[in-house]
C-alpha cells in the first residue's frame, strides 16, 4: 500500500488501467479457449453470449481509457457522442409527432452540445441547473409555438424525460472525471471507475440473486426477475465493493460504503425503469439485436450510469463542500 501511495497520480492511474486491461485479457482468454473446442451449436451458444458481453466490456474499458487519455475535451466529446446516440434511440422509441420537430432540433443540436460545453468548462453550478430549469421551461414554449394542442403534456413530458436521462444524467459521468476535489486533484478517473465498478457489481449480484432466491417479482409485467430482496442484495454488495475500493477514493470507509450503496441501488433501479420504458414502447426483447425500430440496445447499457451518475456526483460534491 505504501509503495502505491508513493507513486505519482499519473502512475497510479496508469496502474489502474494496466490492471483493468490485464483482467480483461485473462477473462477473454478464459472464455475464448473453450470455444475452440466446442463444436456443437447448442454448446457454443452461451459462449457466444459471453463473448458478446466481453466485447461490450472491452469497448467500455477502451472508452474509459480513451476518455482519460484525451483529457477534458476528449472526455466531454466522447460522452457527448454517447448521449447523442442514447437520445436518438430514446426519441425513436418515444413516437414523437410532426409538430415536435422544432423541440427535437432544440434538444439534439442546442441543448446537448451546450450541456457538454458546460461540463468541459467545469462550470458545474450552471451545468446542474441548465436542463432542470432553463430547458425545462424552453421546451414547452417551443412546443406551444408549433401550434399543435393534441397530447401536448404527453409529448412534452416524453421529450423532457429523454433529455433528462440521456443528456443530463449521462453528462455527469465526464463531470466526475473533471471534478476538482480538495487534496484529490487529477484523480477523477478513480471516481468514475469507482462508480462504474460499484454499479456493475450491483447489477451482476442482483441478476444472480434473483435467479438464486426465486422471489415473487414485484412487477411481473415489467420485469419477471426484479424483487426487493435481490435489489437489496445488489445494493449491499455494492456497498461492500465500495468499502474494498476505499483506497482509491477521498472518502472514509463508512462513506465509501454509503456511496457504493447509493450508486448501486440507483443503477439497478435505472435499468428497471428502462425496462418499463421499453415495454411501453412495444419492444418485447431486452437487448435485442435488431428491433423493428432499429434500436440497438445502447439505451439499456447506459441506463444504470444515467441514473447512478447524477446521484453519485451530487453526493460527492455535497460531501466535498462539507469536508475541510
Amino acid at each position, binding site marked *: 500500500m505504501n509503495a502505491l501511495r508513493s507513486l505519482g497520480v499519473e502512475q497510479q492511474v496508469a496502474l489502474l488501467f494496466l490492471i483493468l486491461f490485464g483482467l480483461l485479457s485473462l477473462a477473454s482468454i478464459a472464455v475464448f479457449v473453450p470455444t475452440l473446442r466446442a463444436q456443437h451449436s447448442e454448446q457454443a451458444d452461451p459462449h457466444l453470449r459471453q463473448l458478446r458481453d466481453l466485447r461490450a466490456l472491452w469497448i467500455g474499458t477502451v472508452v474509459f481509457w480513451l476518455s482519460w487519455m484525451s483529457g477534458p475535451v476528449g472526455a466531454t466529446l466522447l460522452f457527448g457522442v454517447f448521449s447523442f446516440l442514447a437520445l*436518438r434511440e430514446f*426519441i*425513436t422509441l418515444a413516437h414523437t409527432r410532426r409538430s415536435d*420537430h422544432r423541440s*427535437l432540433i432544440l434538444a439534439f443540436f442546442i441543448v446537448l452540445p451546450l450541456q457538454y460545453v458546460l461540463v468541459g468548462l467545469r462550470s458545474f453550478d450552471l451545468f446542474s441547473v441548465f436542463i432542470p430549469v432553463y430547458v425545462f421551461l424552453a421546451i414547452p414554449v417551443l412546443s406551444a409555438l408549433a401550434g399543435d394542442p393534441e397530447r401536448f403534456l404527453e409529448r412534452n413530458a416524453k421529450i423532457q424525460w429523454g433529455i433528462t436521462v440521456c443528456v443530463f444524467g449521462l453528462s455527469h459521468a465526464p463531470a466526475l472525471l473533471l471534478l476538482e476535489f480538495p487534496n484529490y486533484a487529477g484523480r477523477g478517473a478513480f471516481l468514475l471507475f469507482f462508480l462504474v465498478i460499484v454499479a456493475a457489481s450491483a447489477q451482476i449480484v442482483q441478476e444472480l440473486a434473483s435467479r438464486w432466491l426465486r422471489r415473487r417479482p414485484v412487477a411481473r409485467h415489467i420485469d419477471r426477475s426484479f424483487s426487493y430482496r435481490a435489489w437489496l442484495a445488489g445494493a449491499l454488495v455494492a456497498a461492500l465493493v465500495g468499502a474494498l475500493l476505499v483506497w482509491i477514493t477521498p472518502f472514509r470507509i463508512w462513506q465509501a460504503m454509503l456511496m457504493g450503496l447509493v450508486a448501486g441501488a440507483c443503477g439497478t433501479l435505472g435499468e428497471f425503469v428502462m425496462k418499463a420504458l421499453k415495454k411501453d414502447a412495444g*419492444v418485447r426483447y431486452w437487448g435485442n439485436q435488431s428491433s423493428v*425500430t*432499429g434500436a440497438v440496445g445502447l439505451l439499456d447499457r447506459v441506463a444504470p450510469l444515467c441514473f447512478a451518475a447524477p446521484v453519485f456526483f451530487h453526493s460527492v460534491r455535497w460531501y466535498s463542500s462539507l469536508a475541510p
Partner: protein
Amino acid sequence: MSIAVKVMGVLVSFVARLVTGAQGHWKGCPPEALQRIYFANHQSHLDWVLIWAALPDDLRVRTRPIAARDYWTANKFKHWLTREVFNAVYVSRQRTDDQDPLEPLAEALQHGDSLVIFPEGTRSNKGEPMPFKSGLYHLAEQFPGVQLVPVWIDNVQRVMPKGEVVPVPILCTATFGAPMQLQPGEDKREFLERAREAVVALRPLIT
C-alpha cells in the same frame, strides 16, 4: 473516381448513418451482387439516401437511383452530386410523344446496373403507400432475368417532415423482402397490386 467524389460519398453515408442509423434488414434475400430492381415506399427525399447507405459498398457502386432531370440538373452542385456521387439515371418528367420515358432505365439495366425505384411516383405521407405506377410492370416484362426486391422504409418521415430543412436524428430501417417475378400471363393490375402488397407486408407490426 476523383477524390472529391469519394470524400462526398463517405460524408453523405456518414451523415446518413449518424442521423438515421441506416440499418438494412435483409429479411427475404442476402445482400448479393445480383442485378436487381429494388422498389420501395416513398415518404421523404431521404429515402434514396437511406437505401444507398444501407447497401454494402460493393453493391452501392452498381445500384443507381432515378432522378428527375429538370430538378436534379438545375444547378451545378445538384447535377454533380447526382451524376458523380450517386450515378443517377435521369428521366424527363415532361412526356414527349416520340420518346419512351422508361428508355433511360432500360438502358441502365442492359448495362448490367441495379436500380432503385419508387413506383408510387410521388411522396405519400398518409402511411399507406399509394397505388403503383405501371413502370415497374413494363420493366419486369422487358427484363425477366432481373430480380425484383420489395423494400419497406420505416420512420424516415419522422426524420424530416415535409417543409422542414433540418433533420432530427431518429433511427430508420430499410427492410429488404424476398425477390419476386412477373408470373406468366399475369395481368398488369394484378401484378402491381401484388408488388404493392409485398412492400406493405414488410412493414413492422409495431408502428
